[in-house]
């Protein structure tokens, strides 16, 4: 069990659904085809950009989704090769050399976040831009968000900026009843 846990707070009241996070991540990690490591959904709606409610008072709101870097990550538990692992910094990541692309992680993840890289036949997932984070940079999606809707930090330290934000804004994980203890919190 890791003692440090990186985490993200996403303020959906700031999100305009532009998908700069999605596109920035996809380009910068050269994710092929129609896959992406994160996505955005229109809250309450089955179809992107379609509001709920009726004219003249429809409601339009968005929620970005990415790997939750769960404390009890089922993808890690169920990975048959050990390619998926929880790192010391709390990030759930893949050792690609070991991954066989079997898709068990997709089936295990209640949030459906890992994707298969069709070209490499390996799983891909968000690793909170670990390489960038380790040298003090922000994840691409955080740096790119024009609305500053994403805040990255450390939740294992109760005095961190992020921990305080979670407390004051009552940020909550998505569907906590899945019981995986996600590290992404929503306002």
């Amino acid at each position, binding site marked *: 069990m890791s003692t440090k846990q990186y985490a993200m707070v996403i303020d959906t*009241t*700031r*999100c*305009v*659904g*532009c*998908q*700069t996070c*999605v*596109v*920035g991540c*996809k*380009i*910068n990690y*050269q994710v092929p*085809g*129609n896959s*992406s490591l994160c996505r955005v959904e229109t809250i309450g709606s089955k*179809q992107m*950009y*379609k*509001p709920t*409610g*009726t*004219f*003249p008072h*429809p409601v*339009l*709101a*968005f929620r970005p989704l990415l790997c939750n870097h769960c404390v009890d990550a089922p993808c890690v538990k169920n990975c048959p090769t050990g390619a998926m692992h929880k790192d010391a910094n709390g990030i759930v990541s893949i050792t690609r050399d070991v991954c066989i692309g079997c898709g068990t992680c997709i089936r295990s993840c209640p949030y459906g976040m890992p994707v298969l890289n069709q070209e490499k036949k390996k799983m891909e997932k968000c690793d909170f831009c670990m390489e960038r984070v380790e040298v003090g940079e922000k994840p*691409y999606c955080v*740096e*790119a968000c*024009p*609305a*500053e809707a994403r805040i990255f930090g450390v939740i294992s330290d109760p005095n961190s900026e992020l921990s305080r934000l979670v407390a004051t804004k009552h940020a909550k994980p998505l569907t906590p009843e899945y019981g995986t203890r996600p590290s992404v919190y929503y306002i």
Partner: protein
Amino acid sequence: MTKYIPGTSPDGRITRRWFLQGVGTIAVTYSAGAGGILSLTGPSAQAADDDKVKYIHSCCTVNCTSRCHLKGHVKGGRIVAVTPGRLPGRDDYPSACLRGMSYAQRLQDPKQRVLFPMKRVGERGEGKFEQISWDEAFDIIATKLKETREKHGPQAASFWTMSGNLAKLAWESTTRLGFTFGGTTYSSEGLMGDHGASMGMELVFGQQRGGHDTRDYMNSKLIILWGRNLADTHTSELRYIIKARENGAKVVVIDPRQCSSAAVADQWIPIRPQTDPALALGMINYMISRNLHDVAWLKANSCAPLLVRDDDGQYLRIDSAYAVWDEKSKKVVPVGTAGADPAIAGEYVGANGVKCHPSFVDLAREAAKYSIKTTADICGLEEAVVEQLAHEYATMKPAGIRMGQGMQRVYNAHTPFRAVATLAAVAGYIGVPGGGASHMGGTASINPIPGVTVPDFNFAEWANTGGKPRIQKSSSQFYNMAENGEIKFLWIAVSNLINQSPDANRVIKKVLPNIPFIVDVDPFWTWTGKYADLVLPGKTHWEVWDVLVRSPWVMLDQPAIPTMGESKSDCEICTEVAKRIGLESLWNKTDEQWVRTFLTSKHPAFAAFKWDNFVKEGIFARSDGIFDPVFSFKDQKYKTPTGKFEFYSEKLKRFDQQVPTYTRMLEDPKGERGRKYPLVCINYHDRLNVHSQHMLYSALKLVQSEPLVQINTTDARARGISDGARVRVFNDRGSCVLKAFVTEGIVPGTVGIANGWTPDQYIEGNNQNLTHLTLNPVEEAISQTNSAFYDVLVEIQNA
């Protein structure tokens, strides 16, 4: 999307034929051994051992208003990632949107690029081209220019640009070549549809731009995004609207579409298109009739007290001075008379028995036509919504309005900005913190240094046209000129002319066929390129030496990747042509030399400027820069004829538009034409693209892969149209076929197709088949007609 079919030519040499379906079908034949082809697939040999990431900066020069400083992550001769660049003095401001980041993908895709000089071999529009050498291309152009000059005079050669690249050399080279040749250039804002805003601003403020830094809305109680989908079209500013809202301001979006910005607003006001002036007048009337208008501000800073003659509607003058009625002395006195208390209501008699009245009387009388009920009826809103908006605007002081070009792509395009800005003036919100009626939100952001007269940039040599006059005509006249046979040669650069101009069928069938020779310079294959005789491979802002001035910053473009094919910058192409037509003395520098020359000023703001640092950082912040939020008209000085905020224009009296008025749209759904074509079709600007740029790359397909027509559920149901159905949108000018997006987020009676999608992305046709260019006499009298892209009626049926 793009098929690549290598083949063999009859002489056994390998040729490469590309079928570019990106713009309909284009078949281009590239000859073998073309040096650049090796660089098509990516890194050149020298780049292969360069697998460490290095950072090269650029300025995003597409015309979205933001002009972001970008940080390119370059590895092995390729841009592998793009992140926001730092803006010195503004740590809060780095920005790069999905468009700016994905642009780097597109420009490195050889299948999207024009790689070599290409000569048309089929019919115009057929899309058959073959590769020629640069020398041959330059010789053809030079010969055509000389022929045109000899037979028809130099003005018969036209040099057309739009806003495809806003960097100095890219944007201006073609125009400068036109000037130095003595040819005709165009003020493109009219045809492209941004000029109504400029005219509206000019009328009331005396300048075409101006407004509040978005950060200034931290001082606002209410923020109205009026026809401005800032989230998608000025993305770098979005965070400040959000902060202002979190600071307690109410954010209202006025738009026929529930646009992205509405997702972070407190209220969406679903206005019927083209009725914005009526809403503004209704709000003005609400304020005046409830005494909520700012009389003191109007008296001091606007034309409100200036007397207008009853007989001819011109301002009354005492000698050359404008006149007011002084309530204290009970007589007509020159404006500015010490101690005078000017009236803004009443009827008076001046010298020689001239009957007159303050100009505010005309405004109040015009506004009085717009009761809450009338306004609500015209705008398609609930009365309570209009009343609440008017009340909140008047009482939540101060309130700031950010205006957008969405509302001015209509017939009488000068009116929307004029009317909305007048509303802000009546409330006394112009030139005060947190207020304003802003266009773009940009404003001068340098402090002039007293006593410094040396220019800040050394543009003198670039500005030298060799003594030739700078001939610039209204772009609104371009179609007529071509159809009248006045254009014998046309050079198109930084413009996808057909895709971004109204009435594509007219352009293709009448305008372009009357132009004997057309050369198109573009980094990408476009719809316009298909109709050119020569298509020359241009470069993008990641491949050239260029500079963009965005005060208080100066930003640099520099080559980040090896040359794609044989592409050249616009300036390099113009320089080579200039050499062949006797203009070499005016075109005697490389692009890098020009950029270096521009930055050799002795202006003290550049004392710390060092070229090597500029190359490394890609940006320089002037020492005289203002980095705190600023706003226009703080000094209440206006460059209008009266020197005041001028809602009353005496020159528009002859059109009975001396004050802002609302007139029904040209294509009125309630008029005769509306019986056949009952739906208003707007052509909004979206998250995916700026005009026709950014289209077609894989990363963006994730967001949306094809054009859609947004239609309200009610309208769709009435026509049996279901979500995702193929539909034909049509009127008597043409049609297009695309899929329907059935939504509650658009005003009934209105449909919306995003601007910029090109014909190959449609199932059939293009939205510009529906639009029109109708010259407007008032706009022509002010300046030039603005394309009324949103003043278009259509009908829709399942296809």
